[in-house]
């Protein structure tokens, strides 16, 4: 008798919780263990154009990374765009649920398990009739929430989600837990959720700096900046952004504390630039299209630190870098290796597998 595939729905209630990264990590691991695996992101929310095809960036990258054979339009059947909103709110709109159903049946064909990745938040897509709540019911999925730890809402999103998903909610994975909250989540929150609320906690994954980093090259591209020096060090990893507007004596002290961060400063602030180079910051971003002193460029070449010139003002450039960092996706092979490492260490795989109902494999 043909067995129906198991369905695991990984969802989130807020943006930038690391859902895609965790999803990628879990699929890679299951794949490595030899399960026949399907993947879908029913509602795409990250616009990407591949040739003529409009698709979702996460769906595209996951398909490429896993070498999936299913077509992109099945992996991500509905893409959230302005065009879609217009279409959905007019008469004679298409039946999105049916499209998703059809795609699902093709993707799930002959699989042991199908992993579904939710959009920005579980409610997204309700107006299309394909909210995560609805789809979870539709495909009889087991739902696991990926929650970024937050002091203000530490269990609230989760408890509301249980009301909405009901028994389908199988548990939670806490992600990006700050070091000082780690013991609280593990020792106080986890026992409470499991014993009092009956919600299993499959993993508590600490904040990880390398995972949050982007390369200087990604910054240069994202900022549309001109690389003035240090071209051969564009793979330097940037973990944060600092505005260099202080006196030079303070600069060194501040840079030392935040060594993995890029420094945004005016092209005319040679003192700050030099301090950043001396401390060994990973990347220097110069604002206002002000060309720096040439000796700085020579030094940056020597110390292998990229210098990127951008037209924005200092604050504007810093905000952009911040956004790039916040929205960065896990694409770099080093990061993929790192997420597998993190999941090995902090995720209770056995328990998660048992919950999905998959037969165990070594």
């Amino acid at each position: 008798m043909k067995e129906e595939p198991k369905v695991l729905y990984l969802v989130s209630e807020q943006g930038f919780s690391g859902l895609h990264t965790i999803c990628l990590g879990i699929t890679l691991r299951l794949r490595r263990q030899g399960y026949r695996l399907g993947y879908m992101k029913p509602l795409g929310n990250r616009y990407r154009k591949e040739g003529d095809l409009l698709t979702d960036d996460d769906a595209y990258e996951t398909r490429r990374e896993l070498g999936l054979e299913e077509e992109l339009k099945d992996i991500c059947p509905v893409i959230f765009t302005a065009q879609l909103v217009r279409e959905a709110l007019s008469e004679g709109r298409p039946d999105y649920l049916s499209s998703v159903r059809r795609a699902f049946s093709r993707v799930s064909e002959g699989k042991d398990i199908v992993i579904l990745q939710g959009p920005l938040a579980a409610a997204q897509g309700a107006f299309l009739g394909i909210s995560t709540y609805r789809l979870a019911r539709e495909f009889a999925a087991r739902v696991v929430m990926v929650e970024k730890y937050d002091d203000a809402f530490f269990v609230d999103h989760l408890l509301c989600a249980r009301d909405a998903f009901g028994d389908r909610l199988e548990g939670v994975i806490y992600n990006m837990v700050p070091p000082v909250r780690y013991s609280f989540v593990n020792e106080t929150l986890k026992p409470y959720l499991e014993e009092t609320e009956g919600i299993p906690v499959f993993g508590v994954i600490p904040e990880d700096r390398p995972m949050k980093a982007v390369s200087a090259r990604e910054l240069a591209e994202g900022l549309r900046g001109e690389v003035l020096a240090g071209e051969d060090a564009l793979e330097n990893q940037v973990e944060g952004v600092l505005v260099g507007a202080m006196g030079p004596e303070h600069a060194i002290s501040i840079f030392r504390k935040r060594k993995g961060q890029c420094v945004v400063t005016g092209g005319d602030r040679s003192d700050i630039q030099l301090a950043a180079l001396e401390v060994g910051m990973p990347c220097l971003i110069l604002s206002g299209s002000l060309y720096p002193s040439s000796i700085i460029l020579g030094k940056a070449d020597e110390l292998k630190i990229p210098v990127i010139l951008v037209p924005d003002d200092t604050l504007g450039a810093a905000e952009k870098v911040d956004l790039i960092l916040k929205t960065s996706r896990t694409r770099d092979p080093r990061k993929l290796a790192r997420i597998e490492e993190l999941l090995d260490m902090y995720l209770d795989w056995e328990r998660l597998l048992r919950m999905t109902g998959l037969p165990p494999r070594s």
Partner: protein
Amino acid sequence: MREFFRPHSVAVIGASEKPGKVGRVVLENILGCGYPGDVYPVNPHGGEILGLKAYPSVEELPEAPDLAVIIVPAAAVPSVLDQCGLKGIKAAVVISAGFKEAGREGYRLELELEEMARRHNMRVLGPNCLGLADTSTPLNATFARTTPLTGRLAFFSQSGALCTAALGWTREHGLGFSKFISIGNKMDVDEVDLLKALEDDWHSRVIAGYLEGIKRGEEFLRLAAEVTKKKPVVIFKAGTTQAGAKAVSSHTGTLAGSENAYAASFKRTGVIRAESMEELFHICRGFSQQPVPAGDRVAILTNAGGPGIITADALEKAGLKMAGLEEKTISRLKEHLPPASNFYNPVDVLGDALADRYRAALEALMEDANIDSIICILTPQAMTQPVETARVLVDGCAGKGKSVFAVFMGGTEIDEAEGILHAAGIPNYRFPETAVHTIRAMVEYRSYLSRGEDEVVSFEADREVVDRIFSRVLSEGRYQLGEMEAREVFLSYGIPVARTLLATNLTECIAAGREIGYPVVAKIASPQILHKTEVGGVKVGIGNTDELIEAYEEINANVRRLMPNATVWGVVVQEMLKPSRELIVGMNRDPQFGPLLMVGLGGIYVEVLKDVSFRLAPVGKRESMEMLKELKTYWLLRGSRGEKPADIGAVAEVIQRVSQLVSDFPVIQELDINPLRVFDRDMGCVAADARMIIGES
């Protein structure tokens, strides 16, 4: 370095016949100064230049000369240096510009040149410099239009342009040089090499330098301390303000370094610091022409009241003493001077004094054992005899062991007299303050020489614990130590720290209160909140659990309201300390000079009063006490108006222990004990809050 100053032969590579070319000026200067060795012009066209056979290449030179002076276009310099190396030349002066100072390409070229020099084991002065001169050889391998006068001052400068200006100025004012060196980009030979070379050079009595930055700070410290024991070193350091530092960084590509670190490094090594270029030469004139005064007692001899008063003021401001004259001096003066004269210090020989009155007074003062140095002031009145008086001075003070400084004031009417004084080695200053500043520099040098070694105590410490903590923090990719970690490090070095616990939630907070024991203090713990009081992040005098819970809520609420985006680690619970005075003790590792210790007044007024003092680690008993004594608030610590004195000894010990900690662990980049709570005498002190940043440098 002998090859630079006393070469047996010199090749001028890039020598030229064309008037106005640098390659011609250099050759002319070498030939014109009377250089006794062989000179080989090198020019691809061969032929003859200024009457000498020119060689088409380095390879074709008849011997390997001691020194090569290179004046070819920048791009060709590395290959020329290669040829020099192959020929066996050991030293080169690269005058050519177009290196680090000239852009990315130039920067790369300089790295290439450096590599070439290393490969051939050659010493290189420059590039981008004016050249060098040695007046005893004599050799003038500069392209300056003015030749330096012969004297006892060795001078080096990071600015070539300043060199040419200095040559002109010193020539006009009769100040001579033993050596004159433009160090340019300091690719290889730098101030450290020069100090080493000049240390035992008997032609040089004083070493002076103009610097924008120091490349090898810690080596400079070691060497300068040695050299200053033998002869004075006077430095004018530019780029001491924020604006100046910025100019230095874009000009030289090096950090100007912190002003405090420079001040501390000069103090440590006895290097005399000039505040301006002019002062640099004035002080050097004093050192190169007069003996260092035996003490700080100064006598003034003048023919006018006003300048005498001005000088007396300047002396006191400079921390020097007006000498009290011996009785026999006073009677001698009374014997020889008109009754209206002033027979006490300042000795006033009156406006109508001719040279003979100066002679009589000077003879009396020279015999007085209460006087270490004499300032002789002359203002040109109608009957005054500047030239004769200058001769009196020259005859009168020779070989008497006292330091004599002339202040012949005025314009052209004293030019001739000044010429006589300078020729005889008596420095003349046109204004009294200049003379006083020079004497002060010389007296400070004397007192530096006479102070003994500082006693550096080695305290018992548990280095292993500290090692373990640092490795763990670094392995976690962190640079800042947590409250608890910093506390453990300090305790391992015997630095008392208040009992403190970090609570990341209320349950932990209540437990912490019980463990430490009431009363306690609660403070917000957040990496972003430096001023905890301002955001309502501190509660003191918490007497029980209920109050602690309330404090916990209130602190968190205040911080959420005032700094909603701050990362909050939790709340720190600390034992409540007895009433005390507050100090700060800290260390900031200076990129050039290493660990710079700081002590200052703590508490909320620290930013306003900025009452702080600095020293470079390691410090011993004396220097740690000196740091405290330099504070304006030192007298508050000693107890004022009936207050009990604070435990100053305990603070000095904390400074020394911190000094040992940061010397043992170069990985510590910064640390702050703020506040250090200091109790009354014999009651000790305790670090209430401590912060530490580590990282490989």
